[in-house]
């Protein structure tokens, strides 16, 4: 929390998870939220889609040895909808995912990811189809997500990526872990609070 870490580039192989509206209950089933720390979350992403009741592996990109070691996740629309559980991005991050590229992300999920230093970046429908095909054709393809030039590149290809400018600044300037920054303004916070009627018991000024 004390050291400023700037996140400008993620380089690595990728793994695709196809489908719209993949909710955080699917990313991490609620029973794992009973653990009091995030330490073991990396064991659980997509657990019920990856394993059957007897813990036997099912067909799933996160089980596929071809995608082992991937650090970039490709997804479709509205990824991470539903529950605000930060366990979902924690599970993906601790599994090894360092950037997510998709058509769109749910609001709370994208905010949670950014605060952990995990960029969520947006490309168009055509572009994500092309990216998914490229990794399925050759899982060893290496991609570079570059937040400074706002591009994703692989081989000879380069595509534009989008993300809110505030998130981009937070990541690239190292303000994504916001507590210290917010806390440095505590005096201003107290002044704002003092002007709110409900903070002063609705007494007349």
């Amino acid at each position, binding site marked *: 929390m004390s050291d400023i870490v700037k996140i400008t580039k993620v380089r690595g192989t990728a793994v695709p998870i196809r489908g719209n509206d993949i909710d955080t209950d*699917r990313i991490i089933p609620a029973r794992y939220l009973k653990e009091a720390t995030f330490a073991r979350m990396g064991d659980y992403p997509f657990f019920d889609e990856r394993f059957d009741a007897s813990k036997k592996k099912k067909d799933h990109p996160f089980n596929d040895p071809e995608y082992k070691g991937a650090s970039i996740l490709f997804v479709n629309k509205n990824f991470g909808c539903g*529950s605000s559980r930060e366990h979902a991005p924690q599970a993906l991050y601790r599994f090894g995912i360092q950037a997510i590229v998709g058509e769109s992300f749910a609001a709370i999920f994208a905010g*949670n990811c950014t605060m952990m230093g995990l960029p969520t970046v947006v490309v168009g429908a055509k572009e994500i189809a092309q990216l998914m095909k490229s990794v399925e054709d050759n899982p060893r393809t290496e991609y570079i997500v570059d937040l400074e030039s706002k591009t994703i590149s692989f081989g000879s290809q380069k595509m534009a990526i989008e993300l809110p400018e505030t998130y981009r600044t937070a990541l690239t300037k190292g303000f994504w872990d916001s507590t210290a920054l*917010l806390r440095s303004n505590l005096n*201003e916070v107290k002044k704002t609070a003092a002007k709110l009627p409900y903070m002063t018991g609705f007494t007349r000024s």
Partner: protein
Amino acid sequence: MAGRTLYDKIWQSHSVGVLPTGQTQLFIGLHLIHEITTAPAFDMLRENGMDVPFRERTFATVDHIVPTDIRKRPFLDSEAEELIQALERNVEQFGVEFFGIDSMNQGIVHVIGPQLGLTQPGMTLACGDSHTSTHGAFGTLAFGIGTSQVRDVLATQTLAMDKLNVRRININGELGAGVYPKDVILYIIRRLGVSGGKGFAYEYGGPVIDRMNMEERMTVCNMSIEGGALVGYVNPDQTTFDYLKGRPHVPKGDGFDRAVEYWRSVASDADANYDEVVSYDGKEIEPTVTWGINPGQSVGISEKLPTPEESVDPEGVKKAYEHMGWKPGAPILGTPVNVAFIGSCTNGRLADLRAAAKIAKGRKVNANVRALVVPGSAEVKKLAEQEGLHEVFIEAGFQWREAGCSMCLAMNPDKLNGREISASSSNRNFIGRQGSPQGRTLLMSPAMVAAAALNGKVVDAREYE
């Protein structure tokens, strides 16, 4: 100059300043916490030697993991016991007021905030739970947040936030008999889509919303996030003030009058400028039931299930059919039901239990159905028992439980088994949501759940009106 929305007004009065990221540092007037999303946040405070500077603005309870039958400590589930102990240690160490398992104020965090009068118009509110939008029913800007943000609120009473656009949603005319607020919000989500609210705060209004009582408005605001909107709210009015008067944390006497003056002032101006306006006719809304794997996949009770081809997302519809096992084109009426769940932050309040009890009274739950009623708070349970609702439910064959989130997300022992089909008054029909990876959930109003419980299948609850 055009008038301002409630969102604009509260945003402005709570802005501390602009951060180097371009985000606004927003003061949070009320912070509600529970056992699930907080433990790592408190750990981070300890690691960094930070205190909770506005600890009197944070209130804690236990809801997600608590058993609703045997409440004896230690809980039979050792993980749940460890988590509740962690919260007990944290609130003790950081000096946060706590409504524990035996407190008369215990309950689902979104039920107890309003009930205690903690939730008030013109406030900002945050809670590590996506259904925090419930509190928007009071004209409160209420944000569902993640654990890192819980840490920020504890350590600074602020959040780094981006401003949203405001979409006004009018429900005009009136609702038909036997059509409930749950049907209204399911209808809105179906129309606007599960991601249609991305980037928006939803302001609900129009004659149908104006006539709703506070419990009904809470049901509508509760599911804003299921439509992709982080925030949902209703402008405060006399209904709001009447509900709040006399509640424990609401000022009394002259203080109340001054509070009402402030509360009135935060409502959107008549000429407020909205980024978007959509309007629906209340008469178009039928009792609504979800058939798929997200809350946008629903139909009116008289309709048939859609075909993948007529959907904007054929692959998503196919995935839903694959999980649910229905046939496209089949009627929703008559869909079998094995479990009935009445409760949750969406529909676990007194008005919800009354609506269900009205239908259950003097009738019997179908022999093939396991039916649970889980009040949203200890107070709701007490009030329901004073009216004799528990006897109505018990005589009909429902189990009458203690307060908690229960089978909405099945973090306690209340779960679906195998491929069971649940008629549920909760908010999410996601795959695995109710505790079985193969389980199936049909979302509907409490009245519709009660009717489904009696019949062992989906029926039109208006038959009982």
